[in-house]
């Protein structure tokens, strides 16, 4: 069989493609051509690597968490610390790559969607660094639950536009960003924040995040002398998950686990478990699993975590699911919040609520993997942005 790692868009099996208005095709072609040229250009590769070294803070370290692992059972747990990146999550990996491409294309304005606000913050950061105008679309619901990140984006000079249509969350922010892009495509690059959307986004965004898994795989070998038995990540659109999975796709001994948001629970209809409960369909420019009704209308997703509250998922995950290469499971709000509390207490690391879904998944894997197994987790982001949600959830504000 051909290496899974070599798969590139537009199609991942029956998934992917470009289901967008014709008006956007020229821009997607330009982006694809610019990206292909950049990827093959040593100057671009070196420039991005240097930015990562001197600005992002790469390589990110690996931390073994023994006290947390003991709660999971007889396993070893290793965290790939994307939370230590500048701006606090993995999102910066993709943003710096795309911002360099925007400059190459001569575009002076970037737009982005954001759910948790992490991608918006990363985009606003890159815009400040490169002197680009930046508009971030954010569902009105999310501007409320991630108010601190709205302030951060504004401080960085970005304009944050609350999206008041539809479910007022990430899905609608993407719609609004697409509408802006159709209108302003001459001057504007749409800096899409996950591995969803029309080709070339799923492939390009994956490539920019594959640094996570490439580093982690080499670090596991050089620092510990073995590959992990399993790799785990949370899955919203799927960028941090594919970023860490990609290096391991052809390591048959390594199991891959993606944890989706199960919201109120997998036995309820209030969740964001797209790969578990969705069906293949077309959303935001690609064919992939998605939450939808029988008429093909997108259903609203539900999660305490704004970054996972999305009824779609990147096409490469749909492909990997159908191939059986990775396994996707649901983690409820309550399970995620408990894992957030436990990692904080046992290791002094407060994860993002998104990331806490992966950690809760690891607590469950501990009960099912063979004794002595090692699990590598993508610690995709830090919890600073979630302090208000967490404080309220755990009743720490004193007032409620």
């Amino acid at each position: 069989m051909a290496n899974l790692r070599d798969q590139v868009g537009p199609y991942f099996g029956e998934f992917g493609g470009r289901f967008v208005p014709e008006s956007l095709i020229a821009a997607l072609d330009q982006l694809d051509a610019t990206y292909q040229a950049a990827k093959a250009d040593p100057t671009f590769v070196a420039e991005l690597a240097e930015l990562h070294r001197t600005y992002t803070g790469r390589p990110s370290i690996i931390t073994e968490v023994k006290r947390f692992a003991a709660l999971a059972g007889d396993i070893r747990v290793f965290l790939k610390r994307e939370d230590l990146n500048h701006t606090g999550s993995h999102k910066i990996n993709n943003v710096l790559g795309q911002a360099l491409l925007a400059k190459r294309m001569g575009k002076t304005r970037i737009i982005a969607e954001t759910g948790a606000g992490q991608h918006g913050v990363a985009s606003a950061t890159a815009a400040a660094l490169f002197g680009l105008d930046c508009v971030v679309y954010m569902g009105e619901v999310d501007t409320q639950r991630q108010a601190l990140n709205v302030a951060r984006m504004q401080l960085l000079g970005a304009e944050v536009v609350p999206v008041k249509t539809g479910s007022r969350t990430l899905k609608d922010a993407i719609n609004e960003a697409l509408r802006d892009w159709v209108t302003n495509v001459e001057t504007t690059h749409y800096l899409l924040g996950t591995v969803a959307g029309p080709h070339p986004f799923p492939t390009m965004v994956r490539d920019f995040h594959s640094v996570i898994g490439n580093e982690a795989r080499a670090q596991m070998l050089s620092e510990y002398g073995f590959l992990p038995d399993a790799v785990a990540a949370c899955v919203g659109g799927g960028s941090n998950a594919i970023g860490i999975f990609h290096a391991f796709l052809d390591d048959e001994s390594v199991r891959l686990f993606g944890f989706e948001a199960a919201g109120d629970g997998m036995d309820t209809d209030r969740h964001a478990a797209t790969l578990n409960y969705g069906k293949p369909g077309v959303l935001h420019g690609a064919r992939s699993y998605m939450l939808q009704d029988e008429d093909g209308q997108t259903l609203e997703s539900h999660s305490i975590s704004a970054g996972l509250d999305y009824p779609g998922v990147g096409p490469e995950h749909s492909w990997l699911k159908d191939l059986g290469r990775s396994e996707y499971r649901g983690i409820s709000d309550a399970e995620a919040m408990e894992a957030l509390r436990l990692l904080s207490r046992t290791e002094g690391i407060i994860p993002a609520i998104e990331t806490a879904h992966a950690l809760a998944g690891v607590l469950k894997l501990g009960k099912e993997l063979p004794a002595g197994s090692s699990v590598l987790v993508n610690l995709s982001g830090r919890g600073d942005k979630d302090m208000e949600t967490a404080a309220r959830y755990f009743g720490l504000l004193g007032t409620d």
Partner: protein
Amino acid sequence: MKTQDTIAANRAAGTDTLIGYFPLGYPSLAESIEAAVAMVEEGVDVLELGVPYSDPVMDGLVIQEATGEALAAGFKLRQTFDAVREVSSRVDAPVLVMTYWNPVAQYGVEKFASDLQAAGGAGLITPDLIPDEAAEWLAASDAHDLDRVFLVAPTSSGERVKTASDLSRGFVYAVSTMGITGERQEVDTLARGVVSSVRQQAPEQFTAVGIGISTSEQAKAVNSYADGAIVGSAFVRAYQDGGLPALRSKVRDIVSGLRK
């Protein structure tokens, strides 16, 4: 009647063509049917009935609000066929359906085509389906003798214009400006370029211009270099403002400029 015949007949008679959009299920299925019938009675030549969709990325606020309201009021996809059947039994204009792709994909492309043909529909306008992704629809529309309208944009390469024009049946939809549906002051500059590109790539194909046309003058101007003008948001807004009478009067207003 087939869209192409309607446009051809108008051209032979030296008459302009007006293509009118209205969303199904807005404000209710019955009222949207009455609105569509009224539009033809007032002079619309070709109908474009919009299927409400949860994520209408090509649409501006006016149409977003109307289709959102239709969905909230309980619009179901299968009602599309009921509406097409009733409208085409009451008026003599071709009835096209404008739909985003996922509803068709979920219903089943072949079944959608078959049911649309059975209901008397003329075909589909597909704003987020480019010819590159349309293999299934090309086959189904051929099998069921349906029109298929692809879009071309000011940014489309000559090669893409040629493919979209060659594969379109009825007419090819020339997007007048870079943007989403809505009413605009200026539609002419880019639209002329798109239409002339279609003429060059596919001289036999009809071209209608849409996006942003809201006045009689604009519709007239567009008809001077294209084969038809498509009006959507302006009709929906008229209905929002004053119901069926306002819609009728808006259609009359645009038609009077075209037919004088």
